[in-house]
């Protein structure tokens, strides 16, 4: 048993310390300087501050290591190890002769993580790992991650701590008055994610005072049974004076209101001092003396709702919720092609479409024989989480894919799936447990899918037992009783629903079912699907896996939620269907031509007209005789100043819709898609402004070029590797900042050093033709239209 465990066993309230920065500034530290340097230059100051907190009654003090990471200490003259070792040593010195414990204190790295920022999850992990190893070696009793605002960052931090030390971990995040962190993480998402990662206690620190933090603590207490930590500021700051607005006594008094919420670990953040900790003792000690629980109504362990989440969205499974099934290559030529071509935008488009159609969770399956599933899964999960807040269901049974996906997922996902086979139970469940995911258990085993409900129920029981044994909570186990095909096994269709009902009623587990297989081989499949779906929901189905773009299926779920009183006041139903008209074509649109649609920005019309045209016209002639001339007309209008950029790219967007229809048609008929040449585009290393590059991409694709988009913040070498791999003749580089122009220069130099036979076109707001020439680019493009002209010149088409 660790010293921390003993402390938590011995005392109900555990006292942390108060502010360090405030104390240092009172002793003359200039703002803007690195406070951790004092660990080495002025150890006496730190020891004296720590002692003041120990004297005030802190059970745990935080070493002065908050910002001691590789990134923040860069260039300061000391290594992370030196600063942390000194910091822990000072704290331990101050603790001599007392029972006070020392925490390695770790704050945010200071750089925003992907997808919004540029720091990779794996790099964040390495930065934390370095800190943890130093702290553990120096003799810290525990690790504290505090002031975190990014769920992804704290996940990297906790994994680094758990995998590189035996130290207990305490996590506190910082919430604003809108109950979110700066990066949009909700209170429930924090708790759901950290509950499963094996930490000792979770809570909140900084940002607000104890009064303002009460709603946050209240919410948090509903989502976790871990000890709650509260380390608020001394009220709200006054920027004009640099001070805070409440006294130590008021601060401590306010904690009385937090006691019934079950708080156990207390301390202060910005603006607090040893006095605040002493006052907390005076207020809280009497509770401990009285014996807390019966007197003050503190809640006993509660049941946490079954739920999964991304940082910004928590889906509680208290009524049927839709899992969208479309991110799956099975039986989809276009999707397979997108996977093979690494066309991540296609997959992202599928995600957004399903989200808009009403999906609550998205299933993600990228398994194909020809691709490296693990890398593709990691890339897809990260990319999906950059554009959708819907929680994901990772769909794979390959342990290494499962592990990689659960690791990089930001939030609490579902894993689909484990089954009753020994091998599956033994390999998959430990991974699920380690990452705190929810898991779907399929009711099949070594003998296949049992025919009877009884046998499937028994497999469900077995999966439940094994999952509970390993420590996965009951609310995170979902059972799939497996849909059979009615045309093949009509007599057994109801066995699925019987089993489902028993799993739900007798085991109290949530249930999942892929619905669409039921109708395979029958005409009018939609009718069978929606009827079966309704029957299944009535039997207790919680998570139908369906195509949310199918309005009958999504509608059935919404209607069911209304009729079972889950959709209170029919609010969701009315918001979706109010003003709903059955699909009637817009008569006025009938006479529109494709070129008119492109010119006027009419997307849906363009899709419809293109589909119509394909009945009578060859795809290539639609492209060459209608789309390209319409685009040329828009381009000419733009150059002459008749139309402006938004109109031009609006036309390009419509043309893209038409192309999508053509592409789908051509892939279906196995004819080669249009390709007038391959072009790589990238926003250079260090730069994250990619809207300009993306406009260029759309326009180039319009003109039939295949664009390999390397994204933003692209390493020099990545560009070179891609040029080699795809043997492209034209590379487009974009930079928006004066500070990233140098990356553009470096990229071009590396391309030249490798003697690659390709032309380079550059563009971006701060670029000039002269500078482009100076850094040895072949072309400078002032806008997207000019890039197309350059491509035409390079490829001679």
């Amino acid at each position, binding site marked *: 048993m660790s010293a921390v465990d003993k402390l938590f066993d011995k005392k109900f309230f555990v006292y942390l310390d108060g502010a360090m920065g405030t104390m240092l500034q009172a002793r003359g530290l*200039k*703002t*803007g*300087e690195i406070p951790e340097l004092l660990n080495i230059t002025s150890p006496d100051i730190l020891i004296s501050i720590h002692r003041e907190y120990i004297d005030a009654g802190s059970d745990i003090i935080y070493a002065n290591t908050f910002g001691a990471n590789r990134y923040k200490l860069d260039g300061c003259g000391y290594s992370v190890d030196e600063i942390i070792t000194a910091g822990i040593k000072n704290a331990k010195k101050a603790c001599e002769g007392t029972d006070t414990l020392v925490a390695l204190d770790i704050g*945010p790295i*200071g*750089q*925003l993580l992907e997808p*919004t*920022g*540029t720091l990779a999850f794996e790099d964040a992990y390495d930065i934390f790992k370095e800190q943890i190893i130093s702290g553990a070696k120096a003799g810290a009793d525990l690790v504290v991650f505090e002031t975190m*605002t990014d769920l992804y960052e704290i996940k990297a931090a906790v994994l680094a701590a758990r995998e590189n030390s035996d130290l207990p971990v305490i996590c506190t995040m*910082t919430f604003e*008055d*809108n109950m979110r*962190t*700066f*990066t*949009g993480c909700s209170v429930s998402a924090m708790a759901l994610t950290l509950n499963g990662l094996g930490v000792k206690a979770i809570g909140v620190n*900084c*940002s607000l005072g104890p009064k303002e933090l009460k709603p946050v603590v209240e919410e948090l207490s509903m989502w976790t049974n871990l000890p709650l930590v509260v380390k608020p500021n001394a009220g709200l*700051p006054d*920027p*004009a004076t*640099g001070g805070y607005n409440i006294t130590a006594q008021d601060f401590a008094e306010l904690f009385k209101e937090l006691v019934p919420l079950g708080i156990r670990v207390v301390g202060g953040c910005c603006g607090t001092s040893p006095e605040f900790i002493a006052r907390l003792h005076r207020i809280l000690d009497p509770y401990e003396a009285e014996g807390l629980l019966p007197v003050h109504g503190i809640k006993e362990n509660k049941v946490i709702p079954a739920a999964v989440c991304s940082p910004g969205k928590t889906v509680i499974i208290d009524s049927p919720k839709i899992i969208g099934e479309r991110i799956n290559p099975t039986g989809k030529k276009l999707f397979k092609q997108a996977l093979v071509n690494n066309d991540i935008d296609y997959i*992202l*488009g599928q995600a*957004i479409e399903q989200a808009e159609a009403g999906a609550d969770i998205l299933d993600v399956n990228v398994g194909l024989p020809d691709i490296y599933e693990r890398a593709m899964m990691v890339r897809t999960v990260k990319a999906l989480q*950059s*554009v*959708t807040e819907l929680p994901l269901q990772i769909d794979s049974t390959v342990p290494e894919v499962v592990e990689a996906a659960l690791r990089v997922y930001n939030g609490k996902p579902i894993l689909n799936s484990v089954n009753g086979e020994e091998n599956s139970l033994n390999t998959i469940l430990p991974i699920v447990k380690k990452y705190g995911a929810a898991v779907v258990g399929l009711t099949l085993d070594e003998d296949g899918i049992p025919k009877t409900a009884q046998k499937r129920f028994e497999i469900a029981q077995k999966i439940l037992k094994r999952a509970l044994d390993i420590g996965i909570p009951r609310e995170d186990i979902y059972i799939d009783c497996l849909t059979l095909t009615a045309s093949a096994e009509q007599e057994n269709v109801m066995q699925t629903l019987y089993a489902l009902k028993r799993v739900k009623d007798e085991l109290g587990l949530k249930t999942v079912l892929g619905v669409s297989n039921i109708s395979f081989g029958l005409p009018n499949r939609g009718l069978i699907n929606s009827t079966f779906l309704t029957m299944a929901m009535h039997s207790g189905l919680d998570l139908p896996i369906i195509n949310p773009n199918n309005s009958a299926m999504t509608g059935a779920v919404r209607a069911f939620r209304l009729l079972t009183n889950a959709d209170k006041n029919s609010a969701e139903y009315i918001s979706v269907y109010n003003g709903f008209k059955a699909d009637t074509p817009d008569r006025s649109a009938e006479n529109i031509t494709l070129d008119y649609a492109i010119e*006027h*920005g*009419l*997307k849906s019309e363009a899709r419809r007209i293109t589909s119509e045209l394909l009945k009578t016209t060859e795809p290539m002639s639609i492209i060459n005789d209608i789309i390209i001339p319409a685009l040329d007309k828009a381009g000419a209008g733009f150059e002459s100043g008749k139309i*402006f*950029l*938004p*109109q031009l*790219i*609006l036309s390009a967007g419509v043309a893209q819709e038409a192309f999508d229809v053509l592409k789908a048609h051509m892939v279906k008929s196995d004819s080669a898609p249009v390709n007038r040449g391959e072009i790589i585009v990238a926003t250079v*290393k*260090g*730069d*994250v*402004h*990619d*809207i300009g590059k*993306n*406009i260029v991409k*759309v326009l180039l694709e319009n003109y039939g070029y295949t664009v390999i988009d390397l994204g933003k913040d692209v390493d020099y070498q990545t560009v070179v590797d891609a040029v080699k791999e795809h043997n492209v003749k034209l590379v487009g580089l974009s930079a928006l*900042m*004066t*500070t*990233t122009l140098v*990356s553009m220069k470096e990229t071009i130099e590396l391309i030249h050093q490798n003697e690659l036979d390709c032309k380079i076109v550059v563009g971006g*707001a*701060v*670029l*000039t033709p002269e500078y482009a020439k100076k850094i040895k680019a072949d072309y400078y493009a002032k806008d997207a239209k000019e890039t197309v002209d350059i491509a035409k010149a390079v490829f001679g088409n």
Partner: protein
Amino acid sequence: MIQLDSINKEEAMRYMGIGNTEPSEIINKIIDKCEAELLDVIHPLYTYSVFDINVSDDCIELKNTSVKLTGNAVKNHLRGCSGAVLFAATLGIEADKLIKRKQITDITSALAADALASAAIEQVCNMAEENIAAALAPVNMTWRFSPGYGDLPLSLQPTFLSVLNAQKRIGLTVTDSLIMLPSKSVTAVIGLSDKPIDKQRQGCAVCNLRDTCQFRKRGDRCVGC
């Protein structure tokens, strides 16, 4: 915190490159929709600190900090001032996320959302500045002067944010390439004086981007000048 009820669409259209002509109905619709979506997701925040300043020959020092403001432009900007406000504001990360989503589904909307967000952060700065003036009254304030403008180096940004404790207070960070994230953010130094201040802006003359500026090419000016 600051509540925006609407975004200056004329300004946004200027950023989008729409000239003086009336945009088409469909573009107007896109802009209206993006405005509503942006207003729904943004969470504008600002923070500031007040400092006394020390003017020396080669720089202006903010007392009790490690910040040294260098260059002629900021010296002119703070001429006659006895103190300075360091200021930072952001629309928050949700604006970036919205723009990113739009780039997948509809690039025109992405352009509109991006321009609207740029207009919105300027409005937020203006409102914040009014609040600061009220909090510090009676005092005279110069206009906002930002790192990267004129010869005030952009490399000041990390120290600037660290002095303001901007990551902790408003979630604002800066990358190694000195790009602020969330991207719709502004930092600035505002001069303080007991005496009336000539609020004349220095305009394009001191701007580093004057040679490539798309606004200048159109005979227009950006918001910074």
